[in-house]
């Protein structure tokens, strides 16, 4: 976990520094210049922050689904704690991706919210996981809550790849990678990024994922204490 912590700090610091300090020029030469992507300008840099956050959302929801599945197999309360902690973090990252996306949309597409397929699908995901927490808080029995929310997290997790990877690509929309994209840009990875941009971008992906692992660990540790028998007796 020590390496996770330092890795997260180092990588995200690197991404903030490199992502903001390296100038964008029309014809980049060398490592320390980014090409300016038509139509994005300086806002290109948002890719280093907005996309990793959105990506971490997917990881967190899938991990939540995985632990939900493990809980159903073993009925071990630890897995329930991990599942709900991961879903909570996923929700936070999902919310951040939505808010940062909407700020970006204001300056690229003119409005904070455009009902672009990807905006719509992430909004639905937020609603799905809001319902997950509503379900959990409506049940008093620990066993029942763990079982029902594990099943729910399985079903909800199955919709994630569809909403994030499939739907935004088969429908026409504003995000790069949508069907019928006028500028002919592929999904983010095929976006015309130069080698050094891709490097910063991937460091961002890894950095935010490590940050997620660290935060998940903190939350799971706190939640496990909460569940522990010691405190149960004192209540």
């Amino acid at each position: 976990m020590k390496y996770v912590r330092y890795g997260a700090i180092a990588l995200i610091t690197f991404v903030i520094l490199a992502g903001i300090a390296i100038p964008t020029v029309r014809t980049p030469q060398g490592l320390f210049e980014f090409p300016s992507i038509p139509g994005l300008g300086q806002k290109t840099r948002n890719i280093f922050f907005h996309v990793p956050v959105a990506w971490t959302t997917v990881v967190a929801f899938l991990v939540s689904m995985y632990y939900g599945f493990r809980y159903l197999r073993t009925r071990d309360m630890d897995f329930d704690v991990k599942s709900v902690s991961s879903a909570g973090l996923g929700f936070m990252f999902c919310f951040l991706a939505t808010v940062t996306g909407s700020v970006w949309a204001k300056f690229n597409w003119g409005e904070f919210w455009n009902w672009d397929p990807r905006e719509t699908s992430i909004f639905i995901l937020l609603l799905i996981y809001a319902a997950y927490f509503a379900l959990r808080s409506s049940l008093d029995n620990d066993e029942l809550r763990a079982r029902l929310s594990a099943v729910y997290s399985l079903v909800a997790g199955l919709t994630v790849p569809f909403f994030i990877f499939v739907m935004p690509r088969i429908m026409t929309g504003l995000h790069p990678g949508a069907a019928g994209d006028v500028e002919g840009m592929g999904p983010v990875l095929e976006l015309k990024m130069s080698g050094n941009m891709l490097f910063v971008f991937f460091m961002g992906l890894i950095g935010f994922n490590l940050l997620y692992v660290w935060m998940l660990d903190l939350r799971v540790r706190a939640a496990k204490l909460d569940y522990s028998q010691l405190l149960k007796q004192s209540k």
Partner: protein
Amino acid sequence: MEEFLNANQMYIVLIIVLLIWGGIIFYLFRIERKIKVLERAFESKTQEPRTQKKG
């Protein structure tokens, strides 16, 4: 405001980075609060603060 941001797009990046940072801080405070509740529960069970016990 909008014109200024359109002319100085770097500040849009700044807003986005700050939003993410704010979200992470908010989450850390929530964990902090959770741990504080646990600490109080622990202390009330052991009757005395842990630091005194050690000394």
